[in-house]
């Protein structure tokens, strides 16, 4: 036992600081939750209306069978990559700076995955028959078709959702134990259950660490497969401009891009609201800024490779889509998207000084996510709107009901996250302590 006492002495303060969101709640929080609940209720109402009257409440029509719901599905899956990437990849690479970021990113993963699943249901024409998708023995003696990329997707997302829940839960056990000992009332009971008898013995620590060590590479592999399969949903189709080999890796990188953007937003907001400046420092923003720069470049490289191939090949089917993007019906959103996810992040993030400006980074995160949302729409809609039979060319813009559901679901995601913040320490307490210890030792 050679450690200097400082980190041990700091522990009460760390406990206090990081548990305080769980213990004290301001009226602004209630207001925020109230407002979000209203939006969620509106969204739920819109969905109910859509189920009652028909999926025609969307603006979809042939040949554009997929629209904002699937775009949102892809987008939210992308967001879900934040947690896994930050905690998984950075844990694998032993990046110490990850510590205050992992928990809030993992929370995002879980929330985003919940929301993602919802979009599948919004999208179904007959959602009340969703159980046809579940592989279980039934009187029809009929199973789902696993040859469909959608079943790959369902399997992958189920795996991913289960794994991420496990992955956020495991490091939470010591923190739940901590909360169990410090919070009274019904929550104590819940924390008690969730802490599954944690008492901090070395045997427990060792088991926990080993489990995390095993699961981390696995979940990174799942993460990559999940978004690859989401990419496969498109690239397996014969639709011009979908049928592309680069889609799987491109989707993975794109997901990380928007995921990181979302982490920056979350990090900034939580730091501000819960005054976590001591734990979340400029250094973290700078590191995330660097990562964002890398994903920007990587994504731009892939996108360029893809579009260049189309342009040089001049295959008319594909050109029809590209033309509609470059100067056709979708030019405005296309160029807006290009500036949001490539140009603006690139010209700002290359400046080291900019990367040390949390507000600026938060703005970039917002811009990137806005851009990525449009990018998801542009991946789905223009290729569908330009089928090979030009007689069927068409346009699409989401309807009001779609917007209500999209906004409602965004509100739901924020609401779930806000509620989770009240239940789960947003920074992993023991990992933070461990990080401090490591820092002091070196």
């Amino acid at each position, binding site marked *: 036992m050679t450690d200097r006492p400082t980190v041990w002495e700091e522990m009460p303060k760390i406990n206090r600081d990081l548990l305080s969101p769980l213990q004290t709640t301001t009226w602004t929080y209630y207001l925020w939750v109230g407002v979000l609940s209203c939006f969620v209720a509106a969204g739920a109402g819109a969905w109910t209306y859509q189920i009652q*009257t*028909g*999926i*025609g409440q*969307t*603006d*979809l*029509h*042939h*040949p554009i*069978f*997929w629209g904002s719901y699937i775009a949102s599905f892809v987008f939210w899956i992308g967001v879900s990559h934040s947690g896994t990437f930050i905690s998984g990849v950075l844990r694998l690479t032993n990046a110490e700076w990850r510590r205050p970021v992992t928990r809030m990113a993992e929370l995002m993963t879980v929330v985003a995955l919940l929301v993602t699943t919802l979009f599948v249901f919004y*999208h*179904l*024409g*007959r*959602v009340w*028959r*969703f159980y*046809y*998708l579940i592989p279980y023995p039934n009187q029809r003696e*009929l199973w*789902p*078709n696993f*040859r*469909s*990329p*959608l*079943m790959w997707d*369902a399997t992958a997302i189920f795996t991913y959702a289960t794994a991420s829940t496990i992955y956020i839960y495991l490091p939470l056990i010591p923190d739940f134990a901590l909360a169990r000992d410090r919070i009274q009332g019904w929550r104590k009971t819940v924390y008690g259950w969730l802490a599954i008898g944690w008492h901090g013995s070395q045997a427990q620590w060792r088991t926990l660490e080993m489990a995390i060590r095993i699961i981390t590479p696995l979940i990174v592999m799942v993460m990559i497969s999940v978004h690859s399969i989401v990419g496969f*949903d498109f690239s*397996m*189709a*014969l*639709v011009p401009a979908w049928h592309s080999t680069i889609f799987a890796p491109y989707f993975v990188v794109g997901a990380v891009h928007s995921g990181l953007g979302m982490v920056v937003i979350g990090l900034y907001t939580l730091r501000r609201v819960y005054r976590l400046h001591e734990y979340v420092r400029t250094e973290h923003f700078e590191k995330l800024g660097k990562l964002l720069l890398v994903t920007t470049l990587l994504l731009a490289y892939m996108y360029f490779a893809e579009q260049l191939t189309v342009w040089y090949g001049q295959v008319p089917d594909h050109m029809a889509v590209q033309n509609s993007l470059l100067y056709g019906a979708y030019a405005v959103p296309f160029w807006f998207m290009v500036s949001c996810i490539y140009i603006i992040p690139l010209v700002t993030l290359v400046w080291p000084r900019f990367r040390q400006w949390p507000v600026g980074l938060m703005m970039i995160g917002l811009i990137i996510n806005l851009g990525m949302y449009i990018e998801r729409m542009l991946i789905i809609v223009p290729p*569908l709107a330009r*089928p*090979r*039979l*030009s*007689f*069927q060319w*068409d346009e699409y813009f989401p309807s009001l009901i779609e917007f209500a559901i999209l906004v409602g679901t965004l509100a739901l995601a924020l609401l779930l996250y806000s509620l989770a913040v009240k239940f789960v320490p947003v920074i992993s307490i023991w990992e933070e302590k461990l990080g401090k210890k490591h820092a002091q030792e070196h």
Partner: protein
Amino acid sequence: MSQDPQATEEYSKTAASPYKWEMVVDLDRCSGCEACVVACHAENNIRISGEEEAAEGRAINWIRIERYWEGDYPNVKAKFLPVMCQHCDDAPCEPVCPVYASYHTPEGLNAQVYNRCIGVRYCGNNCPYVARQFNWFDPHWDEPLAEQLNPDVSVRSGGVMEKCTFCVQRIRSGKEAAHKEGRRVRDGEITPACVQSCPTSALIFGDRNDPDSRVSHLKKSRRGFHLMESLGTHPAVTYLRRLSE
């Protein structure tokens, strides 16, 4: 029923079934009169979409006449292309369905089982011919229009994909009649509604496994081509090119 060994060889894929239903569209005969469109609506209980839905691009047609312009005034031409489900042998729409609502029958039909469909609409995206149509809402017929509905075809509810079936109900009853007499279906005995109504006889339907059927003969025409052949979907619909000098 004499079987041409070569034809059998060629269609060994479907040899499990005695029939392989195919259609020929003679573009040199097609006048674009759209009798087939109404015939299809009447036979297959296709919903009336109404003005609003039609304006949203949601009017349902299992067979539609596409019109393409060529040239400018005064040397302008309008050319018609009847497009229905091509019943591809290697249909892109089939494998993407997560619940087997879309699959291939042993007789070479691209089937859609309405009650199995949950409306993910992937098949619709993946059909290069935009042949698949979706019920965005529950259908509605002002009374007593519903009296006309064909009891041999189910009425599709909202949220379900549908498309041309080659009038499978007619194929089914034709086969039953032949089966009861212990024989094969004769050429021309089964006609889908569109084929039946076509004034210029631009549409021909028959069994590809019967080497003497009209379809088998016409398929060999030098005018023949498939829509988007290069996609490798192997459609069961053969088009015969319109002649022009």
